[in-house]
């Protein structure tokens, strides 16, 4: 069972998540908004629903769903479009769109903070730089901001954070849905490398990591699955996976005994054995359950606090 660890730099278990944090209702003009982070990877989502729809987008029997994603760097291009179309499929199956025909559900997502690799490599494809002042250990100078070129595809953890933020924003907006969606990413690494990265708390990864060598680790084809991978772990991964699950059916008072989890989203990159794939799905399901518990507590806290941000906003 994965538990969020206390400090982001000292995760030792392969199934530990980075510290989760969320903030609900930060955007006052939206019907619903939420930010969600895995450690220092943060995503912000805003929902306006149901609102007036343009005649050409109108559907007579259901609400039109519009998903817009803004990458951290670059202008939205083909990789962004691929991701939004996958989110479209995901949320069309989760939201009860037939309850509000001839209206629009507008979901806008943006990655607001993404950790970068501490040692940039020539093979990296996901070199996004952090917007905030990151505590860069090596003192590497940040690449110049505001590249107006094509965007990079979002990393698997970015995708998972975006899905979680969207799910929370939709809950905040109160649009009817079949259940709550939670997502988690994982990476499949060589067992030796994966263990050494996690054991050293993420500090060591590019070396051999010669700690105690167990028999199973001698086999180069044996693999390990790391949940919520950091950029370093993604760099060394053989394959990466994002799984999104729809949770429904539990009693409000009991824990997840009767909780059902349906797989509603999956994107995998890289070669993977079937057993490893099933194990990855299972690990991510456990991770998503932890995320779900965290999300539910955040929603409860918001509803029970006296000034839960429902204040007025000045009209234009």
């Amino acid at each position: 069972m994965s538990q969020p660890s206390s400090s982001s730099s000292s995760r030792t278990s392969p199934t530990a998540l980075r510290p989760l944090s969320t903030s609900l209702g930060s955007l006052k003009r939206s019907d619903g908004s939420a930010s969600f982070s895995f450690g220092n990877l943060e995503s912000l989502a805003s929902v306006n629903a149901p609102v007036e729809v343009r005649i050409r987008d109108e559907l007579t029997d259901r609400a039109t769903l519009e998903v817009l994603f803004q990458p951290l760097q670059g202008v939205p291009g083909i990789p962004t479009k691929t991701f939004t179309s996958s989110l479209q499929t995901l949320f069309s199956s989760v939201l009860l769109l037939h309850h509000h025909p001839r209206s629009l559900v507008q979901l806008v997502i943006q990655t607001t903070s993404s950790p970068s690799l501490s040692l940039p490599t020539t093979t990296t494809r996901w070199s996004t730089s952090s917007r905030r002042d990151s505590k860069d250990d090596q003192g590497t100078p940040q690449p110049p901001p505001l590249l107006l070129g094509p965007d990079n595809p979002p990393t698997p953890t970015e995708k998972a954070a975006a899905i979680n933020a969207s799910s929370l924003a939709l809950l905040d907006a109160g649009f009817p849905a079949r259940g709550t969606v939670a997502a988690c990413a994982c990476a499949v690494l060589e067992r030796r490398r994966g263990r050494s990265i996690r054991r050293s708390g993420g500090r060591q990864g590019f070396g051999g990591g010669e700690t105690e060598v167990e028999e199973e680790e001698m086999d180069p084809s044996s693999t390990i699955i790391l949940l919520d991978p950091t950029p370093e772990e993604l760099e060394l991964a053989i394959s990466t996976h994002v799984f999104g699950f729809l949770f429904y059916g539990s009693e409000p008072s009991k824990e997840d005994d009767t909780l059902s989890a349906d797989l509603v989203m999956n994107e995998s990159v890289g070669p993977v054995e079937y057993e490893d794939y099933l194990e990855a799905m299972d690990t991510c399901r456990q991770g998503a359950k932890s995320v779900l518990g965290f999300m539910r507590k955040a929603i409860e806290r918001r509803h029970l606090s006296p000034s839960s941000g429902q204040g007025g906003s000045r009209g234009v």
Partner: protein
Amino acid sequence: MGGVAGLGSDRDLTIACTGESIASSQTFMRGHGSYLDQETSSILSSVCGTVERVNKLVSVRPVRTRYSPEVGDLVVGRVTEVGPRRWKVDIGSKSDAALLLSSVNLPGGVQRRKLESDELQMRNFFQEGDLLVAEVQSIFHDGSVGLHTRSLRYGKLRNGSLVRLAPVLIQRLKSHFLTLPNAEVDIVLGLNGYVWVAKHIPFDVTKAEGEASGKGIGMDIDGVYSDVNEEIPIHVRRSISRVSHLLKLLASYQLPISDVIVQKAYDFLHSFSSENLVGG
């Protein structure tokens, strides 16, 4: 958090999240905010909110929803579009409301007949971006809303500023036109959460009728449909600003807005010396 739906816990409050099972469909009927899961034949919540049970009916009331209009509601809206013989007005609900040309008072008398020239010059009455106060006349079968301004108190809004609050905080009152005499400020409480705070202008029926009748048939649009603000003195501007901040403050603590509460709050505020107040 709380007990099983229906049973009272010490807080007597059950919060359900989307997808949580709240009752069995064998014993309960499902209401708003819930749906039926075929396989387990249990009722699941489709929104996040508090579970309400009335006899055999279980429903979930979401914490925040958009305003849903009902016939007879007084609303403040902003014109978004000018169409053939009607305007589209944003009232903060699921879809924009329609204000038909036949539902407004045309200058030249309340009984003046609609001319073809009126249809062609609709922007002389309301343009995109204008604020107006109207009443919900009807809800059409497809869910869209029709407004009317067929009263001398309704129509275009001037001389003030708009405050947007959560619609659930506005109580239904006998009259939604309030006055704060010591502030010289008029307040229009729209049930959709849009509140208009303006300079006080005493409402005089005969004068209003005179304005509405205009100077004969034709396109005399002075008076009721004028776009020009009157002169607003500095102390009234300060009052408008203070009352706006006061309303936003009350709303941020989820306090319901009514004439009594606003009057009391402003009196309390007014009892401090005006030099010490910030936000003037």
